[in-house]
């Protein structure tokens, strides 16, 4: 076998380099310097050409950054390095393109929402406050959102969870395929259609008045497929060996699912449920149809019109005065904070419940 170690190809002598392994390279600070340079150039070109939008400046700077990086690298280094650097900078540019809108959205909402957001705003309703006048608060809407979301979760989470357990652990043949198909179809239902469905069945056929519960019914239709999908994925991740280990101990299948499979996946499942909650917390259309909106505090979700945060934002924006705009922004900030707190709670649960590996 020793002959395979000898390379028959002649080694080309490299006169230019002191060693065959060292090559010319850009210094470590080069990417930062090129970034600064292209940002300057982008701003300069934008200002000279009279471009209004900062987005255009940024795009010019991004293109310059990729171009300069490629040229500099091909001159100083080699083509392979240049391609590597272009790929790296493309990834960075895409990352920035994704993050900039998010940060600017958060920044604007916080900057404009913080103006009227205080204890008074959080603890008062719009009772006796004219739409264009200052004052008033978001308490009734926040209460409505929390109640509706909780009710919708109480309906959708158990049904979704059990459906996913059926699909992963028991489902065989036609029924399972049909369920999977309909879950897929349900994922694509527009929220207004879910709202109209409940409007025809609950409000028109059963002649019920507007209530938070009617809204929850529509929200649970939207939530269910998301819960099924995420739970299904999490249950599939549980290794089959664990199920077999439990079955081989003489544990019945239902107990295996309850005590071994679900606890192993509980972190991911709770994250999935929380993400579904975050999705429905921002729904407006079904709430407009079914919950109707109410400037007063109604803490009973089963009787009478309620409000909710997205609906409140829309109402305040529609009024069109300076003070109502402030309230709309502040309510938007409350909604974002609400969803973010839910997500943090979900992450906390996921970390707390995740299978431990420590010694």
């Amino acid at each position, binding site marked *: 076998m020793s002959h395979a170690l000898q390379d028959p190809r002649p080694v080309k002598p490299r006169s230019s380099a002191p060693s065959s392994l060292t090559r010319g390279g850009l210094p470590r600070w080069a990417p930062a310097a090129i970034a600064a340079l292209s940002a300057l150039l982008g701003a300069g070109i934008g200002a000279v050409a009279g471009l209004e939008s900062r987005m255009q400046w940024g795009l010019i700077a991004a293109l310059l950054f990729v171009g300069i990086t490629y040229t500099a690298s091909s001159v100083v280094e080699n083509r392979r390095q240049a391609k590597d650097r272009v790929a790296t900078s493309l990834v960075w540019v895409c990352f920035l393109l994704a993050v900039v809108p998010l940060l600017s959205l958060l920044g604007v909402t916080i900057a404009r929402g913080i103006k009227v957001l205080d204890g008074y705003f959080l603890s008062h309703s719009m009772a006796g406050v004219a739409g264009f006048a200052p004052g008033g608060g978001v308490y009734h809407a926040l209460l409505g959102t929390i109640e509706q979301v909780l009710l919708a979760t109480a309906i959708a989470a158990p049904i979704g969870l059990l459906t996913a357990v059926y699909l992963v652990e028991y489902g065989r043949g036609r029924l399972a395929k049909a369920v999977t198909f309909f879950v897929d179809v349900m994922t694509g239902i527009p929220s207004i259609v879910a709202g109209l469905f409940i409007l025809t069945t609950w409000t028109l056929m059963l002649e019920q008045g507007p209530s938070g519960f009617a809204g929850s019914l529509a929200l649970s239709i939207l939530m269910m497929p998301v819960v099924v999908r995420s739970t299904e994925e999490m249950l599939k991740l549980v290794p089959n060996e664990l199920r077999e280990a439990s*079955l081989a*101990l*003489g544990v019945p299948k239902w107990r295996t699912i309850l005590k071994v499979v679900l606890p192993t996946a509980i972190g991911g499942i709770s994250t999935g449920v929380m993400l579904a909650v975050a999705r429905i917390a921002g729904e407006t259309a079904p709430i407009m149809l079914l919950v109707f909106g109410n400037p007063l505090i109604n803490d009973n979700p089963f009787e009478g019109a309620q409000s909710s945060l997205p609906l409140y934002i829309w109402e305040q924006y529609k009024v069109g005065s300076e003070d109502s705009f402030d309230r709309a922004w502040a309510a938007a900030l409350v909604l974002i904070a609400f969803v973010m707190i839910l997500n943090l709670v979900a992450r906390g649960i996921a970390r707390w419940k995740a*299978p*431990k*590996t*420590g010694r």
Partner: protein
Amino acid sequence: MAKRIDVSGLSAFYGTHKAIDDISMTVEPRSVTAFIGPSGCGKSTFLRTLNRMHEVTPGGRVEGKVMLDDENLYGQGVDPVAVRRTVGMVFQRPNPFPTMSIFDNVAAGLRLNGSYKKSELNDVVERSLKGANLWNEVKDRLNKPGSGLSGGQQQRLCIARAIAVEPQVLLMDEPCSALDPISTLAIEDLIGELKERFTIVIVTHNMQQAARVSDRTAFFNLAAVGQPGKLVEIDDTDRIFSNPSVQATEDYISGRFG
């Protein structure tokens, strides 16, 4: 408490594919029986038919009889859950429950079956861990997760978990193939101790291991890929490794094929 296994005319299927064909053999109580043979010859499938784990696989189906003393495991009205409580199993890869501590892992069989007295639980866990030669290594960290142990310790934890429910028979599906030589030695010593109390059936790819631990050895083979696996012969381990009665066995053991 150990029981005799008497298999006659047993075939197992995956859907329409026949995986093993017409196997008959007897496994004596309080002995170690090793299954050897090339990959894909149905050793593991046959092992899994002995505690009705084969039918857990989608499409899994069995024909024939498996008598445990005088009860047919595939008879009318036999509850597979009850069978698995009587015939325990240890798998190829250590698979402790990741959400449970070492203590809970061993107690899992009793707890999940719901039939235990709280006062007994500590004793059972200690006895099982001692039985699996793991007690001294873990007695100070019973509340730590089982997945924090080394591979060999995890496998002994799985054995402790299996013997905690006091089965009559212990099936082992290549229990050492994921372990280093020292852990393997520990498990082999353990098998020698466990056969005082249990009937043990072990699948192994390691012929030295079969020769070391088993009293009797069964050689499985298949005619060609896609054909069902068959039992070629079963005999005392000494005879199989010194003077087998079938040529194919000698070829396999001496490394002339497979």
